[in-house]
């Protein structure tokens, strides 16, 4: 052990206790930062739902969560998230399956990893542009379908700028997110399990149906929940696509924040935020449970 010349040597235990107390103080700046910019805003967001414009406590805003306008926002958000999560999870899992056996350090993997990362995390506003250029009124696919096949995808009116128009852009960022989150689980399948299956006379199909899929099920469901949460909390694509729409909850929060009064209530944004937090807490709680289950096989 070294003797620090600046500090008189004391009994080890006391010194360790002192240094760990000093170390605990070292976490204070980060703790303060998180308290100010994560805990406080979250508390305010939830708390404002319970006060009126003058700051007096009220349940009026929370009661507004039962309003048909808000209910339709939540139901649109929920089905949009569920639909795109399921489609994204299935396609993403297929791509992850197709990547088994490719070199993890190869160029194919590297470009798919990066492209997935960009589309899953960076998309937002660009995805709105991309889909206006693709299936907008003058979009590439719209025009090609109209001129070559004679199909007018907007025969029943333009749906791109409403909730159904969000399905394709959302799937476009859900699939990459699935690839990112599900591929590690696939890679954690132990080669020994495949060997054991083969030794016992099982085929590749037996391996997948009897071992692979049962083991991966919790990870798949966990990723599905993550995708759901991702779509549910997504704002940028919808906001860039529809400047006025209030079809999903995040857009209703924008309306409530920017126009002061929606449904004649001043703090509706807080109540909507509370509703979103409740949904997210339920989804992420379930996710944590599934992760614990999934990690059993990844040791």
């Amino acid at each position, binding site marked *: 052990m070294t003797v620090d010349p600046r500090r008189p040597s004391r009994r080890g235990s006391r010194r360790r206790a002192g240094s760990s107390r000093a170390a605990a103080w070292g976490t204070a700046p980060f703790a303060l*930062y998180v308290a100010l910019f994560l805990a406080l*805003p979250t508390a305010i967001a939830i708390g404002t739902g319970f006060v009126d414009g003058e700051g007096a406590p009220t349940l009026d805003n929370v009661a507004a969560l039962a309003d048909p306008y808000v209910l339709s926002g939540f139901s649109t958000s929920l089905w949009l998230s569920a639909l795109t999560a399921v489609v994204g999870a299935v396609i993403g899992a297929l791509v992850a399956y197709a990547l*088994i056996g490719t070199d993890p350090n190869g160029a194919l993997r590297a470009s798919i990893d990066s492209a997935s990362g960009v589309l899953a995390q960076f998309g937002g506003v660009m995805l709105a542009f991309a*889909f206006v250029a693709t299936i907008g009124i003058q979009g590439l696919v719209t025009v090609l379908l109209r001129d070559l096949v004679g199909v007018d995808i907007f025969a029943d009116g333009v749906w791109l700028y409403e909730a159904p128009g969000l399905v394709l852009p959302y799937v476009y960022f859900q699939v990459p997110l699935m690839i990112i989150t599900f591929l590690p689980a696939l890679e954690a399948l132990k080669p020994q399990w495949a060997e054991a299956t083969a030794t016992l006379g099982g085929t590749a199909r037996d391996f997948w149906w009897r071992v692979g899929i049962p083991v991966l099920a919790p990870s798949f469901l966990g990723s599905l929940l993550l995708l759901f949460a991702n779509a549910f909390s997504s704002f940028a694509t919808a906001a860039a696509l529809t400047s006025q729409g209030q079809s999903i909850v995040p857009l209703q929060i924008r309306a409530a924040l920017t126009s002061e009064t929606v449904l004649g209530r001043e703090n509706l944004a807080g109540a909507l935020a509370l509703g*979103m937090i409740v949904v997210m807490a339920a989804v992420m709680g379930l996710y944590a449970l599934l992760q614990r289950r999934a990690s059993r096989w990844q040791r």
Partner: protein
Amino acid sequence: MTASGVPAPRPATRWTILGAVGIVFAIPIVAMVEFTLRRGLEGGYDLSRWVTVLTGDLGPAYRPLGTAIGNSVALALATVAVVLVLLVPTMILVQLKLPALRRPLEFVCLLPISIPAIVLVVGLAPVYGVIARIAGSGVWTLAFAYGIVVLPFAYRAVQSNLDALDLATLTEAARSLGASWPVVIVRVLLPNLRRGLLAAAFISVAVVLGEFTIASLLNRQNLQTALVVVQKDDPFIAVIVALLALLFAFVLLLVIGRIGRGRTRRTP
């Protein structure tokens, strides 16, 4: 037998899946490129708009876009500073001295995944009202909010590096050879954590450059909010800049991937 040992799909199956998904996912990108090449009402294609953007010859109407890009770059740097100054020392401290705090720290750092930015912004609006009174309404103050947004990404990048090191042994070795704490940090910890720190910095830059929600609702101008504004006047220019930003983020993530792969190769 494949490297992983798990039954791999047949090449035909693999390339059918990858090809089909690849083509479908390429369509919107191709459509964006096609859109930027269109030559107005007379039809046909040319490169004139790309030349305009790439030579920076956009005229005063697009000055807000330049300002916004500057804001985004400044925010990206400031956010990386927040990560390096506030998060990283705390993570090292917890790893070395406060093992009891590891789980709580992980919980806090991953929490922002569960709190949508649109919810956070409802509570950030009053917080930034106070900040504006104290520190002015400079765009850099957003970096504090962005530090929270990038927290899960940065935490994962640094933690996976920390997990691969035996930090306690390294520091004890350095200390017993007579190194002071500052020397340990500069000559032992930082070089060993370089990969994790670089990955954390790059992923933070990518996330900040793509951030729209908080800037938009707190009325600050960044790349993404400016793109939405420009798109209303001149969608062509907005799409070109969006494509360039996508390309930039793609390259940034390729570099992160390389950094990560370097690490896995070194520890077999």
